[in-house]
């Protein structure tokens, strides 16, 4: 993997230089200067460039392999695995006595020996420029320089302190794998590759971020994923010119199809099984080093209502849950506005007894229903945001304040009606049903728009708003795929896994418009049935 990665990195470096010619020069660009022949000079340069940072360790040896050559071993403390350096690199250099004669050109030969004969490390590459040197040590590798040659070698030793594979914090499931992505790109790719053991699972690497030099990997199955989509994604990735990428969210905003939409045109997941499933359907995953959230593209709106658990549970309950999620989404978007519309415009729709009990609750409430709803919604949003930020220890205190003080006390004081509290609470809970956070966020934003429409035009406003939303959705595309597939345009075979999920043996085809080639997923006659002997009994 490494050499491939390196070459890609080079090409991206070139493209960056091209950018620099016509745009502003960047002081953060690594010098392409070659290494010096003298070790002291090299060491000096490194120290200068890193400001003599304490975590850049430069270990100098006066003798290596039993020959009197000056050698420097350079690595970054914390990124490199000390154990590997001690056991495999330093041990090789200091304890092995090379018996061969090195009369010709000791430094060059020693370097060759180290590389080809004595270094007990799997991945070793040559380096000849300062840029490559820094790339290597900042990736956690160890660089060995020998006095007298303008070349060095980099030995792979990445390691150090890292979070292990843990249960994901978001998108938890009852049934399904317990592992989640970590911040390390390699671990993440390996988590996926462990699930899809197939050479057609291709990874294309890019490095994005002038300063951060973040590794980004694009994963897809060659032969299932649409070539156009892959090409388009790579094109959009190459277009990005930004100083830093700290999370996949940076990239998401650069490559999504439409920015001015409340709906996500690509989604993310923390779950390797969800990503593997998406890749197997012909989608493309974008992994960003440093983030456990992996992007998936292209997506359709119905995909956002699906959880990976749908595929592990029985199809009947999975279908039921999917429909529930859609209903909950609609509730979380429309419930407050429906309440406003019905209680202030269309009172005739309510059954008489309900109307009277609502009217009794509203007696003495000083605000119009719209203001009441708006105030409660904003209160809830504040509580929610506070819940995310605040230290866990006082979380329960806040929930008491939120629930008791703001809810019950406000009702008893006659500031809001009890029904409104119920409405807002249910709306809030319904908002958490969506398996994709980005989707529940869109409902959160749209809710306020619909409330305004409902307060001015009643149900007609809501209907008009929904129609505008539908037109907007029908016009959206995610990497060339219409957003409302498979309902509009209607595709018959995709119905089996959109609003409903049919049993696995019936899902013979992959989503057609995403992976147009290689559509067949499985043999078609696999419906379980009693064997003939059993039937005869």
């Amino acid at each position, binding site marked *: 993997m490494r050499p491939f990665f390196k070459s890609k990195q080079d090409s991206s470096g070139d493209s960056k230089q091209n950018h620099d010619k016509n745009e502003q020069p960047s002081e953060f660009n690594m010098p392409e200067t070659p290494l010096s022949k003298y070790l002291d000079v090299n060491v000096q340069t490194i120290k200068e460039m890193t400001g003599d940072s304490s975590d850049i360790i430069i270990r100098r040896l006066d003798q290596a392999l039993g020959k009197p050559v000056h050698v420097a071993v350079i690595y970054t403390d914390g990124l490199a695995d000390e154990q590997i350096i001690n056991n495999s690199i330093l041990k090789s250099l200091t304890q092995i006595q090379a018996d061969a004669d090195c009369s010709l050109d000791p430094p060059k030969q020693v370097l060759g020996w180290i590389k080809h004969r004595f270094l007990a490390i799997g991945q070793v590459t040559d380096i000849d420029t300062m840029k490559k040197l820094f790339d290597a040590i900042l990736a956690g590798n160890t660089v060995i320089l020998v006095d007298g040659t303008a070349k060095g070698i980099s030995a792979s030793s990445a390691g150090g302190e890292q979070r292990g594979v843990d249960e994901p914090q978001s998108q938890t499931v009852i049934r399904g794998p317990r592992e989640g992505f970590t911040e390390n790109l390699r671990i993440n790719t390996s988590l996926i590759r462990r699930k899809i053991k197939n050479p057609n699972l291709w990874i294309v690497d890019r490095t994005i971020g002038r300063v951060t030099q973040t590794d980004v990997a694009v994963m897809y199955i060659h032969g299932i994923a649409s070539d156009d989509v892959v090409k388009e994604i790579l094109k959009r990735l190459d277009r990005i010119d930004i100083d830093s990428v700290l999370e996949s969210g940076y990239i998401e905003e650069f490559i999504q199809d439409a920015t001015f939409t409340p709906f996500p045109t690509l989604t993310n997941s923390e779950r390797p099984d969800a990503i593997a499933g998406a890749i197997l359907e012909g989608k493309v995953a974008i992994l960003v080093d440093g983030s456990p959230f992996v992007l998936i593209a292209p997506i359709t709106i119905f995909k956002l209502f699906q959880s990976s658990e749908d595929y592990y549970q029985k199809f009947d309950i999975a279908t039921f849950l999917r429909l529930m999620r859609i209903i909950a989404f609609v509730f979380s978007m429309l419930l407050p506005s429906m309440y406003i519309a019905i209680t202030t415009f269309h009172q005739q729709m309510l059954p008489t007894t309900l109307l009277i009990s609502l009217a009794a609750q509203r007696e003495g409430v000083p605000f119009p229903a719209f203001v009441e709803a708006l105030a409660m919604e904003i209160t809830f949003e504040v509580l929610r945001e506070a819940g995310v930020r605040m230290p866990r220890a006082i979380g329960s205190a806040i929930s008491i304040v939120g629930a008791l003080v703001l809810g019950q006390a406000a009702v008893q004081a006659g500031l809001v009606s009890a029904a409104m509290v119920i409405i807002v609470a249910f709306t809030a809970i319904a908002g958490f049903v969506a398996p994709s956070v980005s989707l529940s966020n869109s409902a959160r934003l749209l809710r306020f728009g619909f409330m305004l429409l409902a307060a001015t035009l009643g149900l007609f406003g809501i*209907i008009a708003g929904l129609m505008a939303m539908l*037109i907007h959705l029908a016009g959206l595309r995610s990497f060339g795929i219409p957003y*409302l597939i498979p*309902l509009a345009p209607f595709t018959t075979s995709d119905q089996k896994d959109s609003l409903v999920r049919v049993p696995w043996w019936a899902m013979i085809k992959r989503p057609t418009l995403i992976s147009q080639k290689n559509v067949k997923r499985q043999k078609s006659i696999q419906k379980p049935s009693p064997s003939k002997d059993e039937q005869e009994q």
Partner: protein
Amino acid sequence: MQKIDKYELIAMMILFLIGTSPLYELGVGAKQDAWLVVIVAMLAGLLLLLVYLFIQKGNEDRNLFEILNQQLGRILGTIVTIAYIFYFSYESMRNTREFGDIINISFLPKTPLSLLMLIMILLSAYAISKGTEVFFRVVEFLLPFTILGYFLIFLMFIVSKNIHLERLQPVLEHGIMPVIREAIPKVISFPFGEVVVFLAFWKHLNNKKNLSKLSIYSYLFVGILLLTFNLLNLTILSPQILSITTLPMLRSVRLIEIADFLERLDPVIILLIYIGIFVKMTAFYLGAVIGLSYLVKMSHKKLTVIVGAFIYTISFAAPNFIYHTWIGFTRNLMYDFPVFQIWIPLALAAVVLMKKLFSRKGKQTGGS
């Protein structure tokens, strides 16, 4: 070139034809025989549809305006094209105004009509500005919900025990003539003859082999749906009450009372009607935009704005709803619309037929 597939065409045909029609009692002039009027008009309209399909078949890859110019020559073609642009705009405006007034009567009496119509036109313009394909996709998405909505209402009518089938008797009390007089040309012109606007869209279908079959099936489906709701209104409200009711369907839906909970369902109907209206007015609007784009070279978005502004302006032409419906039902349906729905297409079909015959003859003579 924008492409539409067969499901999109079906959805469009169905929702377009449904439009506002279930709201009105078609052929109410024939009293308890109104449902026969629908059947007669539907069959007569089917013949018209065949004429339109014949025109399209003879000119596979052209839309109405291209056909007109091709068959009638430059000058006459341009004149008829302009006439059609006005006709489509007018139809679009009729739907806009109608719904605005329905909302005013039944929902929001004090909200200014101008605002309601503005919102509707803006929504249509938004759909059109995104292109034919997106508009058809929107319609396709709406279809299942609309059909489901009508089906639920149908079920609720049955469950709520409001139906009195005996109100249909006696059948043909005054003979067949009142039925035919009602059907032709009134009910043909609205809603069945309005299919003429599809001549502007059919060329986008990606697989034209199924064109006739799809169109005719969708047409018959809508015919049956309209017939069902026509019958329901008759049996629920009786012909006497129907004859003085502004919006019969709205009234019959308000009679549904199930389990002290499901009552006053008029907002559901308004939603369904809005879907129909939206599809119809946008389709006519789009037809006008396509026609204008044939005449003047301008960007799609500019044309959308121009036609939209025009429709919005003329929607204030009628001083009130009474005048609006009067002119619609007594003048337009009898005299004006048949010109565009029946006479011009018939003439066009005749021209196409003649040309075909002559060219064949020409070929034969040339060959021999």
